[in-house]
């Protein structure tokens, strides 16, 4: 394939749109992930808005049941796979190499490939709206509702194929971060000196590579049932719909830890910075994260307590689920220990981080009540579960992502998000979130089932639902304030490389960092490396006043940009798209992916006339 690489030389320029399309720079890829995920957040938020509008009054007929099913299915699917996960990956991309003292991830082109496949997979999922065959069987798509006789249009095929495509992106990305974290830490950064966010990313990535294959098999079997005549989940032919549930939740439970561990990691970085003291109980926080990652594999059937697995299975999973609350509790106590006697700075990032602790505790408490299988018999499929989900995923993950955004925004852009707008953002989100989801505990225990498009006024649920819908408006305002905050940074002044006086390695270099990150790979002195550096410098009478010096970029060899990740991603996307339209397209996609792979493998590290 030297012919191809000879004819199309490897690009070298970072400039312009083409620079972004061929980028292999983790910082840019992180920004791409973040922007794309934010757009999907708006879609999923609109879907939530439709749901809340519909449920605000009893016996409403704003939208019909079919459309309602599509709304909650797409809201959840989008939020889980196209918002929270890629936002987490956005932070992995931006922060991890900087936090470990590396110049990029271990496989920069694979990193780019992961982004492009994610983008195309997300677009593929939303093509279902264009053809108006939207998935409508819930984000967990229980069989055998999802089989062809009951879900006739192609919505479920869009769902399954898009998730398969996005799954490859997630696994590729996770593999990349595992190797990066293990193998690209700067000298002196032992495993037990890594920032907790790096640890949580490692554990999350291990969970990703191990859990995704299981749902891949489930999705393949579902697709085969729907399109190739098999009967994996069809009872009349001997198949068992429960197998789908098992396969889904063996993936699904580690998935929720994939959603929350990065968030916990971010919060764990922010609390010490704004308490002006080191993290309390670092080894305990690390080990409890590891324990959560391992035990997360032993609890999945708590999503299936009401399926009829029998008392033995239910008891086993009750016990394991109750046990997994323990390591989370350990983290919470260590966070409190970090705050204790600290001199707290109530920046926006800190307020979101503190809110995370409180809201996650609420979600965790309802979670513990679900763990007890007899009580779950009442709670299952009611709004009590919806409340739990949103306290841990919104009050947990989203709130932490807000915190991380306010915290690391200055590092990646060199500008700060406005603190006043930030506080307004915070209060709108916090109040709105509680207004929406707290009442759901009550209507849920009062019997309001999930996934109903309307309810009779006789049940007395209307007031709580109205409250919840008002809360949505408050949250939406909060998001608008955030978007305005982002927008107005165009004109705000630059800030220093270290606006928070933070301990992490990433704060030693300029904001935004140079393309090569570190002119010299740092020698890590300890857990709170930069605090140690700054203290030593103070003590020596030469306090740090600026970032590490920059050098001429061409003196540091960085991987050149490349077309092949995008090219190969197009091939992968076409394989998926072809399965949904014309099989010939899949064949073409396969050829493209193979050509892309070979060309990728054969392209030189950089073009001969390399310049940046």
């Amino acid at each position, binding site marked *: 394939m030297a012919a191809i690489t000879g004819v199309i030389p490897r690009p070298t320029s970072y400039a312009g749109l083409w620079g972004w399309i061929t980028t292999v720079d983790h910082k840019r890829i992180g920004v791409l992930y973040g922007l794309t995920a934010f757009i999907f957040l708006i879609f999923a938020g609109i879907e939530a808005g439709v749901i809340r509008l519909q449920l605000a009054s009893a016996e409403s007929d704003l939208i019909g049941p079919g459309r309602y099913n599509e709304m909650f299915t797409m809201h959840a699917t989008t939020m889980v796979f196209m918002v929270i996960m890629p936002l987490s990956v956005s932070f992995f991309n931006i922060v991890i190499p900087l936090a470990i003292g590396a110049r990029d991830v271990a496989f920069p082109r694979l990193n780019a490939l992961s982004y492009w496949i994610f983008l195309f997979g997300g677009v593929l999922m939303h093509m279902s709206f264009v053809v108006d065959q939207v998935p409508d069987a819930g984000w967990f798509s229980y069989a055998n509702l999802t089989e062809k006789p009951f879900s006739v249009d192609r919505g479920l095929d869009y769902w399954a194929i898009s998730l398969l495509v996005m799954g490859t992106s997630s696994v590729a990305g996770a593999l990349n971060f595992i190797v990066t974290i293990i193998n690209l830490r700067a000298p002196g950064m032992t495993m037990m000196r890594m920032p907790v966010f790096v640890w949580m990313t490692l554990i999350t990535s291990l969970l990703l*590579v191990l859990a995704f294959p299981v749902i891949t098999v489930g999705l393949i079997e579902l697709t085969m049932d729907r399109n190739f005549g098999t009967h994996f989940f069809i009872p009349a032919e001997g198949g068992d719909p429960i197998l789908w549930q098992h396969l889904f939740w063996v993936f699904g439970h580690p998935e929720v830890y994939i959603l929350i561990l990065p968030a916990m990691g971010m919060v764990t970085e922010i609390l010490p910075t704004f308490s002006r003291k080191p993290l309390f109980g670092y080894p305990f926080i690390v080990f409890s994260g590891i324990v959560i990652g391992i035990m997360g594999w032993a609890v999945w059937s708590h999503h299936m307590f009401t399926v009829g697995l029998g008392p033995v299975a239910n008891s086993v999973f009750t016990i394991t689920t109750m046990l997994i609350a323990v390591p989370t509790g350990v983290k919470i106590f260590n966070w409190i220990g970090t705050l204790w006697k600290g001199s707290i700075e109530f920046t926006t990032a800190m307020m979101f981080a503190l809110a995370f602790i409180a809201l996650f505790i609420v979600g965790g408490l309802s979670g513990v009540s679900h763990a007890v299988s007899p009580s779950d018999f009442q709670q299952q499929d009611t709004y009590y579960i919806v409340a739990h989900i949103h306290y841990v995923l919104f009050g947990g993950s989203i709130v932490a992502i807000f915190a991380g955004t306010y915290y690391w925004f200055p590092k990646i852009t060199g500008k700060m998000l406005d603190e006043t707008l930030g506080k307004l953002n915070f209060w709108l989100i916090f109040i709105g979130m509680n207004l929406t989801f707290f009442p759901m505990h009550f209507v849920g225990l009062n019997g309001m089932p999930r996934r109903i498009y309307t309810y009779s006024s006789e049940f007395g649920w209307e007031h709580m639902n109205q409250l919840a819908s008002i809360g949505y408006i408050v949250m939406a305002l909060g998001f608008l304030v955030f978007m305005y905050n982002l927008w107005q940074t165009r004109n705000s002044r630059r800030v220093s490389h270290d606006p928070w006086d933070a301990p992490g390695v990433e704060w030693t270099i300029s904001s935004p960092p140079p393309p090569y990150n570190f002119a010299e*790979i740092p020698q890590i002195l300890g857990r709170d490396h930069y605090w140690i550096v700054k203290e030593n410098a103070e003590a020596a009478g030469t306090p740090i006043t600026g970032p590490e010096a920059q050098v001429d970029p061409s003196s540091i060899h960085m991987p050149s940009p490349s077309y092949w990740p995008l090219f190969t991603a197009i091939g992968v996307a076409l394989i998926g798209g072809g399965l949904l339209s014309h099989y010939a397209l899949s064949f073409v996609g396969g050829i493209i992916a193979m050509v892309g792979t070979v060309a990728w493998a054969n392209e030189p590290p950089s073009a001969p006339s390399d310049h940046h």
Partner: protein
Amino acid sequence: MAHEIEHTANHPTFKQYVVIAIILFAITIVEFVLIWERAYIVDYLGASKVPLLIALSAVKFAIVIMYYMHLKFDPRFFGTVFIAGLVLAFLVGIALIGLFVGFEGNQRTYAKANAIPYVHHGAEESAEGEHGASSETKHETPAVVGPVALVVSAVGETLTFDTNSVSAKSGSEVTITFDNPSANNQHNLVVVQAGTKDAVATDGTTAGPTNDWVSPGDERVIANTALINPGGSGDVTFTAPSPGTYQFVCTFPGHNFTMFGDFIVD
């Protein structure tokens, strides 16, 4: 700065690789012999061949990983990540199998009840096929009163009879014709002593399909049809017992909860 460790020349030699290959072949031959009818070992082994085969395969598995994949000589890290995935896959697999086979009890009887034996193409063996509509007659004392013909039918797939009460005069010769127009379900109709329908059904489950889901010699059973396949029909003739209320029920596992009625003898 740690540079890549140079690849150490810690390889097995060509001869050792050949020996390993021969060991792998030999184990495969042993496995084959263990299951080969002509070797007759399989007759002695019975079910114990399963753990033996698994153990032998595990040995092959380990040899390939250790030597061909070089894990024995490589830094431990590689083995750790791979073995972690392997162990997790194994545990999750065992858990899934356990959840289906171990705890679900009667729910796995659908296949047993509905499976059709396989007939090779061109085979002339008289396949058992489906049960024909067999009539079982229990003639006891000649009818004192005139014969009674009753017709009861299953209703679609709803697991119910189309009537919840039939009656006959005591001592009459009763013929119940039972129709099964459902598409997916086998049914029977069993006349039993009052209040015993569930107990008879429970015992019938143990008795199995070859006994038409009725325990042979069950004294609570007055009469029963054979197991009727979807679309089929069958009948049973018996003498109506002494006056009282009896029950009729379908004892196909699980159907007794909804598929029953009263048989009133006056």
